[in-house]
């Protein structure tokens, strides 16, 4: 099983090498996104005394928060949902039924390979450019940094499983473009990528506590900033791991059902 996963990871890796030039423009795109939110937050604090905190965040914290959010997004991002939709549309999904690996293993394996590849070729350069351009702070400490790294890996898992679940809907309806878009904006907002939960109205913050999305961007960035230490740190990572596990079970269950439905309809 691990060997199958590495084979898919290798294929994902090779698929990305073919489009090298896109990395340069990709780095530019991420830099532009960070700068939009950097300048917006800078304007928010424009008339405040240096060091002023709003909702528990000084400007320097927010800049670090936003920058780290986009940096790890360049690592965990994937298009599993779109890819499954394309496989279903073109009828190629049947080939995955004949293979000893499930679609879930194949898609997450490919995505993991791509993410590992991007870590070196994309996330690395983006990190350097963003740290050079913006006053991004360092991690709160070695433990905070280690927790941040572990948390970013869990972000990948949660993001990949959510995408897989969205992709599963393609088996039931003809076009999932609207759903993919809904997922995109839900994650962008409720993951905390654009602003920390502390700036949300109370009801929305409360709702986000019971949803998996905040563990995609907010948890790793908060860990980096040292917002949790000791048992709290482990608690945050544990919650994230729990969500990843729940979503994994949901993916397996849904895929199992879809396979049975497919066989019934097949001919």
């Amino acid at each position: 099983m691990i060997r199958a996963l590495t084979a898919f990871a290798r294929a994902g890796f090779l698929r990305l090498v073919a489009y090298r030039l896109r990395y340069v423009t990709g780095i530019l795109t991420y830099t532009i996104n960070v700068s939009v939110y950097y300048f917006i937050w800078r304007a928010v604090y424009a008339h405040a005394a240096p060091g002023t905190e709003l909702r528990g965040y000084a400007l320097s914290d927010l800049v670090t928060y936003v920058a780290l959010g986009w940096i790890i997004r360049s690592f965990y991002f994937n298009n599993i949902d779109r890819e499954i939709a394309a496989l279903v549309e073109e009828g190629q999904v049947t080939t995955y039924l004949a293979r000893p690996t499930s679609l879930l293993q194949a898609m997450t394996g490919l995505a993991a390979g791509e993410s590992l590849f991007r870590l070196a070729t994309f996330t690395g350069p983006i990190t350097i450019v963003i740290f050079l351009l913006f006053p991004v702070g360092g991690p709160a400490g070695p433990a905070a940094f280690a927790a941040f790294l572990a948390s970013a890996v869990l972000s990948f898992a949660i993001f990949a499983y959510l995408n897989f679940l969205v992709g599963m809907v393609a088996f039931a309806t003809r076009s999932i473009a609207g759903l993919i878009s809904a997922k995109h904006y839900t994650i962008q907002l409720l993951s905390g990528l654009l602003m920390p939960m502390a700036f949300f109205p109370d009801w929305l913050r409360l709702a986000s506590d019971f949803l998996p999305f905040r563990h995609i961007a907010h948890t790793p960035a908060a860990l980096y900033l040292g917002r949790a230490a000791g048992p709290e740190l482990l608690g945050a990572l544990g919650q994230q791991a729990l969500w990843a596990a729940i979503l994994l079970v949901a993916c397996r269950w849904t895929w199992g059902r879809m396979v049975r439905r497919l066989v019934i309809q097949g001919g």
Partner: protein
Amino acid sequence: MRRVLSLYTGFFVQSLKARLAYRADFLSELFASLLATAAGILFVVLLFHRIPDLGGWRREEVLFLYGLSLVPYGIFNIFSINLYEFADRYIIEGRFDRLLLRPMPTLAQLLMERSRLTALQEVAVGLGVALWAGARLGLAWSAVDLLWLGVVAVSGAVILLAVFSILASLSFFFEDRIGVNAPVWNLIQFGRFPLPIFGPWLGAVLSWVIPFGFVTFYPATHFLGRSAFRTLCYATPLVAAAFALLGLAVWTLGVRGYRSTGS
């Protein structure tokens, strides 16, 4: 002249029919597009939930800008899809040869061949937000204001079309999929906020290199009564005309150098 005009409308209507033929796709696209618009507005609303002002700009002013920016952006988006996908669909897959055979300017055909009527929701939602925010700001719409609103909508759409036509023209020379559209498309969002918050360097780029500042911010200062930007505000139609000419020139140059991939 009338013949040409009826030719254009006929062509455009035909492309709309093709889009509307698949109703489920159309509705799905409309839903996705509405969500994108709503998410953008929601960000501004949430941002101001805990914050009094943005570098000296009040919530209603920023919302007015944001809403107004969706009007030219929506008009642009009716025609934009082929510009984004020009390299893939027309150069690499060889569709451009077909455009050359027809008795109509290639750029006009390209813009009208695959239109997205769903983008009209951006115009409608944007106008709604701008009117709401304008009412809160105590804006009284005079005839001149309404006329200026029309000028802003058209100029802004023309600037966006010109910039992305220039980018599409690059594909005549570099068949490679460089993907330069994505970063420039992301720059559009700077034009939805008060330009001064982005500092002098970025402000200069957004005014004189890729003039997204003229799509909304500068012309909008007419409504917001910020007289510091008066000259640039009323220069908007000129900037739009200049970029339209530049866009056409670069496009013509590109078509002249075009060699079919022959497939």
